[in-house]
């Protein structure tokens, strides 16, 4: 959005425009004489007007394992709450009022919905503190911090840190079907299930057998018998010739033709 991207006077002018538009819409929204439809429209417009603020807040939580679009969604709920609760007489900017509400909503989403396995809130908050302190201390110490150092920084005991570590495993569980998209969104990512299981070798035969079955059923009795003798009884063409009373050459021709028929019908089916 322009008020975020542009610089200098253009920026402040855009901000001023947003501010004016905001004030105008809130007047309608709070106007008890206005019709419900008018107020609803004003409320919608207010939400739309401030969506860039939500996007700005949501961007701060990117790369934390939740899709950006989801964060914008929950952030927008925060924005709607802020629009409904904002008191224009208080003399603060709407963005000042709305930002904590939006961020609070996103944080609550991480705390409540982000967890794959329910963990007591005390531990959830502890885990967030631990990861924040770990990042900070790694930066300042130039190495991975000791649990004792984290405990001192947060103001809790080493035991609690250890407890928090165990709970952090519950934050993200991995689906066996989740694909490894580390090499971009090529779509050809391997899932965990691909890696730990193999396809039954006979599996593709099932499909072929099932497709061939109706074709075999529709063969004339003599052709069916030749196939049976050749491939199931493993007889030679000469033996088959003797069995059904035709020449070996004829058996050969019939076999070739029947197989060719089966093959083309199979391909047509697919």
């Amino acid at each position, binding site marked *: 959005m322009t008020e975020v991207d542009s610089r200098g006077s253009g920026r402040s002018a855009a901000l001023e425009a947003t501010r004016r538009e905001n004030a105008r819409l809130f007047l309608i929204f709070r106007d008890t004489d206005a019709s419900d439809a008018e107020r609803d429209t004003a409320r919608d417009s207010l939400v739309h007007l401030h969506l860039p603020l939500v996007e700005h807040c949501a961007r701060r939580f990117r790369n934390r394992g939740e899709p950006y679009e989801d964060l914008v969604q929950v952030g927008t709920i925060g924005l709607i709450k802020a629009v409904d609760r904002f008191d224009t007489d208080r003399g603060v900017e709407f963005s000042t009022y709305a930002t904590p509400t939006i961020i609070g909503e996103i944080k609550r989403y991480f705390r409540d919905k982000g967890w794959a396995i329910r963990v007591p809130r005390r531990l959830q908050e502890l885990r967030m503190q631990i990861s924040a302190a770990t990042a900070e201390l790694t930066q300042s110490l130039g190495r991975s911090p*000791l*649990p004792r150092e984290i405990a001192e920084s947060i103001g809790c005991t080493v035991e609690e840190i250890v407890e928090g570590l165990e709970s952090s495993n519950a934050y993200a569980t991995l689906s066996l079907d989740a694909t490894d998209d580390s090499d971009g969104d090529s779509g050809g990512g391997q899932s965990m299930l691909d890696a730990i299981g193999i396809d039954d070798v006979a599996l593709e035969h099932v499909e072929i057998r099932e497709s061939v079955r109706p074709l075999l059923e529709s063969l004339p009795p003599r052709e069916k018998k030749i196939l049976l003798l050749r491939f199931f009884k493993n007889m030679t063409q000469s033996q088959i010739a003797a069995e059904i009373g035709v020449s070996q050459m004829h058996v050969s021709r019939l076999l070739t033709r029947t197989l060719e028929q089966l093959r083309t019908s199979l391909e047509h089916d697919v």
Partner: protein
Amino acid sequence: MITSGVGARSDVELRLPADGAYAAVLRTLTAGLAARLDFTMDDIEDLRIAVSETTAMVLDQADPGADLLCRFRLSPGELTLECSTTAAAPAHPDYDSFGWQVLTTLTTDASVDVAPGGYAVRITLRTSLDLSDDVTGVGL
């Protein structure tokens, strides 16, 4: 804090049912002990994975209803864990398996002891922290 007792050599023993449900207990205990031996958070993360692999190997061989005996030997900056169980017919470890690759990568030292009637995996991990740093001794 127990840290005061770690100066010399300390041993900790834990006996658990040889059942995957108790793996978390062993993991947390190990992390708790390592936290006192100046293991860094990264070391502890490695250790937790190593303990999981170790228990997986040992549980695989354990007789039904057997116990898992876990012996820790603790010294400053170093932890050795031996997980053993009773196994009527222990199989020789597959040193090409993924689990073993993980284990040898994460640990300073890893070994398997296969004996008639028993199976044990021993792992040793050292802290990546330079113990000559003045950080040790603070608060001990």
